[in-house]
């Protein structure tokens, strides 16, 4: 995959019981040309794999989080061309991001950091029950914005 083919990320927040709290796809390929539509099409074929890979990476995250002092775990797992990086919150939530290529490792750390802040703000909402699915539209928008800022 060439460098200019754009970035694609699958981001998921996993709860304590391996339940999905929030998932989204971050991509800048929608404005791509002809060559990229083929890439998108091939990616569509394997989209279901994203969740599989992310889920299996949880094993690695659970192992790494006790070996590592920082909350950002860098790359924890790799399956074929897909890599998984993770971030563990203080509350034990796990942020996973799946990608084929990364723009910048530091950017990813910042991304996680900001997501975490956004999540904490969400937690302040008394109507949000922790460890349940996040349906907040502003949160979704915020995540997309953060992703756009750091990753795309």
């Amino acid at each position, binding site marked *: 995959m060439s460098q200019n083919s754009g970035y694609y990320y699958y981001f998921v927040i996993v709860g304590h019981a*391996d339940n999905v709290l929030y998932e989204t796809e971050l991509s800048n390929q929608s404005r791509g040309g002809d060559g990229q539509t083929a890439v998108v099409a091939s990616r569509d074929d394997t989209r279901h794999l994203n969740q*599989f*890979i992310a*889920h*299996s990476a949880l*094993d*690695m995250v*659970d*192992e790494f989080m006790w070996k590592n002092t920082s909350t950002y775990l860098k790359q924890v797992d790799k399956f*074929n061309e897909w890599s998984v990086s993770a971030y563990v919150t203080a509350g034990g939530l796990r942020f996973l991001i799946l990608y084929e290529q990364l723009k910048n490792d530091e950017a990813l750390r910042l991304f996680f950091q900001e997501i975490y802040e956004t999540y904490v703000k969400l937690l302040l909402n008394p109507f949000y029950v922790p460890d349940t699915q996040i349906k907040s539209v502003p949160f979704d928008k915020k995540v997309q914005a953060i992703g756009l800022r750091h990753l795309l």
Partner: protein
Amino acid sequence: MVVSTSHLDPMDAFHKLVQQQQLHQQQSPAKLPRWFSQNIYKYFVLIHDVTEGEESNITLRKAVSVFGDLKQHYGAGNCHLLQINSKRNQPQSMSNVNDPADSNMTDPWRLYVKTNETFQQQNRLSATTSDVNYYGQHETVNNSSPQSYSPFVLRKQGSAISLPSVVNSSSLSIENSSYTDSTSNLTDLLSQELNIVDTNRQQSERIAHPLDLNDLTSSQSTTDNTIDEGYDGTSTTTSSSIPAIVHGACLTLSDHDRIHVFMSEFVTKGLLPWVEVNLKTYNEQITARRGISKFFNMPKKFFGSTKQSPTITSHSQSATNLAADSVEILLRRAGDLAFLFQDYEYAFNSYYAAKRDLSNAQAPTFYSGVLEMCCLSNFMQGPATASKSYSTSYMDEAIDTYSNVCRLPIFATRCVLMSTEILKAKDMYDSAVQQFLKLSQEDSDLRGALFLEQVSYCFLNYRSPFIRKYAFHMVIAGHRFLKAGQDHINYTLGRQNFILNRASDSINNLNSLFMSNNNNVQSAQQQIGFFKEFLTLFSQLGDSQSIDKTLPVLPLPSVENHTIKVLLGSRMQPKLGGNVSNCNDFDFDETLEVWSDLERALMANERRNSGTRSQQQIFTNRTHNQQNPIAIAKESIRVEFYVRNTLQIPLLLSEIKLLWKFSSKKKLSSSDTSTKEDDKEYTNNIQLKQNDEHDLPVETDILSDCVIFPNDSSKIELCLRPKRSGHLTILGLCYRLNILVQNTSDQTTWPDGLYGKQLFHVKGSRLNSTRKERLNVMYGTDKRLEINVLPEAPLLQVEFSQMPCTMFCGEIQSCLIHLINLSSQHSISRIKLATSHPDLITISTTNETEEDDNDEYYSYTNKSKLLCSKTLYDKTQKVLTLIPKSANKTTSKTNVLEPNAICTLKIWLKASHLVGEINTDFLFLYESDTFQQPLRYRTVKHSSLFITTSCVGLSAQTESIGLGELLLPLQIDNLTAIQNNLQITLRQISCISQKWNVNNLSPVYRNSISCGESLSLLLKCSTNKIDEKSESNDDALISNLLLSSNNNDNNYIDVSKSPVCDFYRNFLCNENFFNPSRKQSDYNRRHTSTTTPPTIQPSHTKLSLILLWQIAMSNQLGQIDVRYGLHMICPNLGDSLINDQIILEDTQQPQQPVQFSSTILTLSTQNPYVEEQRLWTSIQEKFSKAIQYEIIYKTSVKHDFNKNRTLYLPVELKLFNSSQDKLNIHIQLSRSSLELDPLLSSCCLWCGITDQIIEINASQTLNVQLKACFFKPGFYYLGNLTLSIVVSETKSDTITTLSPHKSQQLSITNFSSILPILSSLSAIKSIPIKSNIENYFVDISAC
């Protein structure tokens, strides 16, 4: 090398064996297996059978002498004389053994043979399916081919059949393949069994054998140089002997001792010294060479780095880049030897040295092999004794080299499997996972899947199990397995099972090859191969299967069970050249309903016995199949279904027939003494002899052949006929299966194909009524293949003559129906016909026996007017009885359709007035005395489609011209759609009415209209005079008008005869002519207080016109074909004519029906005023039209008022009572206009009686002379004349007292029909009559 002493020339035999071995080794394209080294160790064994009786001394002496020669020739250490017993049945030979044979002769191999057999299966699989990689194998001894040459075999054939083959072969392999792993294995086993501690062996095996069975096999099958060909050969021989044999049963205890001595001697004196010598020489060579090679390698090391890259790509399999005697090879060889003899430390050191000296670039395969062995020997040393710790990187490197550089995925696989086993043993699951994953990405799906599965198991074994990873990799592994498509496994399993005589397993395996889901993967060529294998297998199994006589079940082609359709009755062939009833095989759901409706209509009047069932003739997936179909003996039962060829090759089915099971039904009434033959169950599910076929109770038709193309399905229809009553079950079909291959040479291999069967499986619709049924998948019972056969019964065939398919609207065509009784024994007593359009079909009353030509459509009369009886108004029957069942026996002969008789009927078809396609269904129902329960009658169905095109448009309006006369403008259009030159010729207009008489006013100069034209006629209807004469007579008058220009022709068509009158009757039915239902007439009858019968025959005020036309058109043959047709119309006579019916309808309003005045009182008290008002207005409305009147006078009068001051103008008032009742008319001549119209100068002045009540009879015209007088000229209005119908109640006291103040206007009427209603009203009112013409003016001018 083993030679028996019984051989004639043992020395020669040994010599030959040696030669042969050398020949084997030196074959120029080195055949597999490869040999370890040039000079392998040879050990010579002379076997002597001690049991050869009393003369053993001689033979022994001979043996010893031969042995002496042997020792001289090959060296004493390399030879041995083994004396063993080989004969079981010689008690003399057992003399030295006193113990009972049984106790002694326990099977020494007992413990090992079993394991051998399990091994054998695995090994055989690997040996036959794929070429197990003997590639890197440096040493292996083939012992099977020498065996075939050895004299030992000869001897075995001769006398020693019972000699334990294992011993034979094992000893054989001991000598021949002295260095194989199997040797050590076997010797080990042998020594263990004998419980003798061999010190020498212990010396040689310094380390106790650490390998358990699993490790052994893995190393055997995968190690570079220890492929167990010898072992495998051994076990194969074992299995070839009968499994029940007791191995080693002939060995006496002394024999055991002797074998033991032999073994120890072989190991200590022969094998070990040889090994030691070899190792020593290797060592010497290595040390000698190392110096030189180091010297030579120095420059290489300096410059070598630049030269490496090209070599990597160039070689792929060049394992032998190195010279055969290079240091590395020698090291390797020494290592192998040491490894074999379990000196793992030495082996590791040599491997390690070799590894150090070798570079990856030079010989990658060899290098990775060394790496692999290095790891292995390291591992085998055990953790305690290993000098170096185990390094995974060696294995990794080996795997990488194998897979990436050498592109030998099989070696890489072997390496991974071994390495991961080691890693697992060392609890290094992480590394194992890495190594598995390294190869799981390869293109081979099967291996990838297997590895992924292993990976997932490894994840489970982690210290903290990675369950999610495990799940993920399991899923991926499953996906890969799915992609792998393992047809070949089924194929090989099938073959292997066949070899093992496991027929059923083998067939199952092969059957699954043809399952539909695999077929996308298989190519046509592959499938042909599979099929050939399948056929050969079946043909070879045929003998063993034929015992139970049932046919084998074939997997191909797949019968689509849901398409199975059971049809009762054979396909009818026309006997008289017409069309046979065609609808018996249709199974559309909607038509099914149509038929059952028709059938219900037919059976509506019948008293039905309970349990009577109509004969359903078709059973499909959609019909309700809870009840068994009822078939008749000697009539065909057809089964129709689709078979699908899922393969890529065309299939040929031949000799297809149905399989069935038949049992004669046990009669409940008769005692159990019925003969056994009746109860016997017949079937053709077994292979029968030819002559048996005739005795069977069911005749089966055979379909000769049928080709099904690839990925196509084709319909097969099979037929059978039960010969007698009973219960028939259709099981399935049998056929000869073959493939159609272009290559004819292939075809000749199986000219006959394969004869087998397939069974039908039908299930009903899924049940959904109860909760249990909803939760589970349950299907209803389906009995469509279980058929009750009833005894022979009459069968009706209905044949139609050519039916027209396109007709003009209103056209009349005739058609002949032939009713044929196909039965040769039974007669049909009654046939009835119901159609979906009864108004369009009628049966000709003319007797068909007299030959009238078909052109005779109408019967003619020369009267222009004739009366017809009331029968014209008979209600038509929906059901037509074709052959009436007669009560008395004398006539029954004529009315019964005799066996084989044909009855021909003529029916008239009339095209509908609606344009379009009309499907007309005919249902014939027939009964016979022979029919028993549950089948009382049988049916024949036919359906034909008519396309009607418009031709004639007929429209009429009525215009009352007052006083009981009507003008009837009639317009006749030619509506034929397309431009053509068809002329519609109008023949005649007939009017049928009880009241009206029709005259033509317009001149007839032309009676044909072309396309687009229209003809207008003006008819005048006048009241029929006859009516008055016979008032009670309901006869209608038919007045005919000829429209032909030739006036002389008085040939009127008799409308009152068939078929016109039938259609007219139908037409009237449809027009709802007889609207007053019975209830209404009853009502009338009850409430008529007068003697006059109710005159509610409305038709006497109605009239209907029948237009008869014909079109001459040329048919395809150029002949003129005259089409006849008729149109009927019932002109709406409009509001000008009141009929009672309307009023009666009004009385039908809720709450309105007035039974008795008392009830009305109560009603009216509830809401008297509103009710009264509503009813009153409605009556008023209707009655105002009952009386028509006109005023006849001179419209303009000149008068000299000077002469005479007053002008008297006579005015005639004509009153006409169009109702059926006697009415009282109140005529009031007022002074001035009621409406004060300013336009009018003045109203006339009436003179004479200005207020009178006149009684007018029904349909009576009354002239009243009036006189108007004028005094000055002007424009006067004569409308100041008020007419009203005086209505009052009967002189019932109750009512008059109710409204005494309004009963002054008395009436004497007998207004029967409305009296009850009116009497209910509290008021007596007069109904004003509107004038027909509004403006009655008179212009009076002065002279």
